């Protein structure tokens, strides 16, 4: 690389950093203002889904691994957290932590089996595993099958902070979301993230340089599972229930849609996409099954003509990376 090109490269990355910082500040401001404008419960749910989409994006956007079974992590963590809070009477933070651990373990086991395959094979294996987890959740006694776990207590976080107050709960959820978002961003920008991106671009070359690419991918998969679990467990506390909806294959499809609409491989894309998809479901709910049809149409349109997604398109226009 010539010196000029190098200088311009560092230049762009400085611009990117500035753009990223501004976008982050805007996002924090919006999260802070949102509950005064929209229904807070809706925003909290949207934040959980946004975190879920960020976790999914870590894989598809930076490691080129399409997981079509990510709902298993969301759903399992949500069940474990709800069970821990309701039946074992744990306070919410430890209940959420247990949910995250459960999903991370599930991610480690299924990942170890799936990671040796790539591309569409990987996708099909994740579909099959998530279906297995779905049937497990239908049959296992602690999930209460079709009824789900209802009336999960919100309790006092760390025994001190009363989460049954809506304002407190909102701050708690917003903090978890920002923590998860920054964790994904930090991972992608770390040396570990650089190697992931290198694997995405040219895996044989990375291996020839002496990196164990499988271990890197497995670590990314497990991390993504843990963050998806964080989203699911938090959602169980917010909605005060855990149900089969979160483990279904449809949910795995929705997270793909969110990321695709917002922009794969961008930090803010999944957040924007989640907001769009969740609002769509919320405001179109009266049309019943038409929501599925519209989702399908959006899917097809995105794949055919709008592959960069909303944020990806904006970033490309402005020549920055977000």
């Amino acid at each position, binding site marked *: 690389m010539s010196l000029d090109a190098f200088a311009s490269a560092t230049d762009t990355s400085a611009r990117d950093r500035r753009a990223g910082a501004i976008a982050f500040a805007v996002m924090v401001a919006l999260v802070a203002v949102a509950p005064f404008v929209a229904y807070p419960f809706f925003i909290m749910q949207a934040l959980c889904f946004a975190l879920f989409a960020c976790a999914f994006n870590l894989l598809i956007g930076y490691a080129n691994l399409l997981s079509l079974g990510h709902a298993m992590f969301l759903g399992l963590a949500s069940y474990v957290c709800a069970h821990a809070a309701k039946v074992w009477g744990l306070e919410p933070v430890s209940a959420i932590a247990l949910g995250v651990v459960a999903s991370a373990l599930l991610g480690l086991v299924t990942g170890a089996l799936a990671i040796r395959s790539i591309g569409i*094979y990987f*996708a099909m294996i994740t579909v*099959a595993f998530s279906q297995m987890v779905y049937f497990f959740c239908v049959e296992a006694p602690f999930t209460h099958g079709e009824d789900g776990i209802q009336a999960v207590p919100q309790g006092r976080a760390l025994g001190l902070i009363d989460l049954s107050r809506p304002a407190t709960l909102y701050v708690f959820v917003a903090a978890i979301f920002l923590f998860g978002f920054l964790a994904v961003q930090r991972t992608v920008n770390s040396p570990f993230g650089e190697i992931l991106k290198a694997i995405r671009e040219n895996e044989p070359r990375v291996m020839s340089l002496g990196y164990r690419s499988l271990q890197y991918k497995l670590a990314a998969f497990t991390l993504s599972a843990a963050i998806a679990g964080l989203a699911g467990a938090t959602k169980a506390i917010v909605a005060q229930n855990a149900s089969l909806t979160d483990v279904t294959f449809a949910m795995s499809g929705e997270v793909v849609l969110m990321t695709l609409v917002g922009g794969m491989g961008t930090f803010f894309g999944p957040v924007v996409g989640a907001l769009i998809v969740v609002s769509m479901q919320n405001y179109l709910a009266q049309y019943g099954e038409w929501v599925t049809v519209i989702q399908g*149409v959006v899917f097809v349109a995105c794949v055919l003509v709008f592959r960069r997604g909303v944020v990806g398109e904006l970033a490309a226009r402005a020549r920055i990376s977000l």
Partner: protein
Amino acid sequence: MNVFGHAISMPQLYGQLLIGLAVIFGMLTIVNFAHGAFYMMGAFAAYFLLQWAGLNYWWALLLSPLAIGAIGAIVERLFLKRLAGFDPLYSLLLTFGLALIFQGLFQNYFGASGLPYAIPKQLGGAYNLGFMFLPVYRGWVILASAVVCFGTWLVIEKTKLGAYLRAATENPTMVRAFGINVPRMVTLTYGFGVALAAFAGVLAAPINQVRPGMGADIIAVVFAVVVIGGMGSILGSIVTGFLLGVVEGLTKVFYPEASNTVVFVIMAIVLLIRPAGLFGRAY
């Protein structure tokens, strides 16, 4: 003892769906997520033909695959064609979106519950095989699927058309240079794979009820079977599909709680021992 009848006819349907999926994947490298939706539409087409046109089961067996296969060919021309040359993940996502559209539309008009479709009267009753009763219809499903699966395999592996097709998968530019219309062949192949799904749908209509969700329920299992059998091997897919169907049917008899998960557990074990699948080559 009906369960044993179940244990040997569902696998045939899997085999049938698998071969369509395997043809589309093997020849076009498209993971056809809409396969379950086309299977469901095949069954619905049979239902419509009976209700609106008064055409019986045998007509449906012929017309439904033709109609749904034509829809498949149109889908390929309009949408999938544009994604040639992109990462195959995009065509997977596209067919996923299509599956949502089809399923949503049918659910919208027909609800989630099933519509009955009677077994044709020529195929009613049961044979007494001595150790079990085999309902005639299930015997027919086994026979029809076996013939179609074997026929497809024969066409692809043993005929000139199949040879063109396999050559076009290896090197489309070269095959075009010989004056063969590869894009048309791709469209027809996709249509044919979809027609196989519709055929399976018609066969399934009298066994299971005709429901909008019938395809979505089966697709994950079919994927698991594909992973177990290994991609790219058509015969392997059929054999695996049959064996797993039997295992699933037997599990239903002896330990019903696990019947839904047993296929996935087997998949995990196979992945552990042979990551490329039982009959697959390493990829």
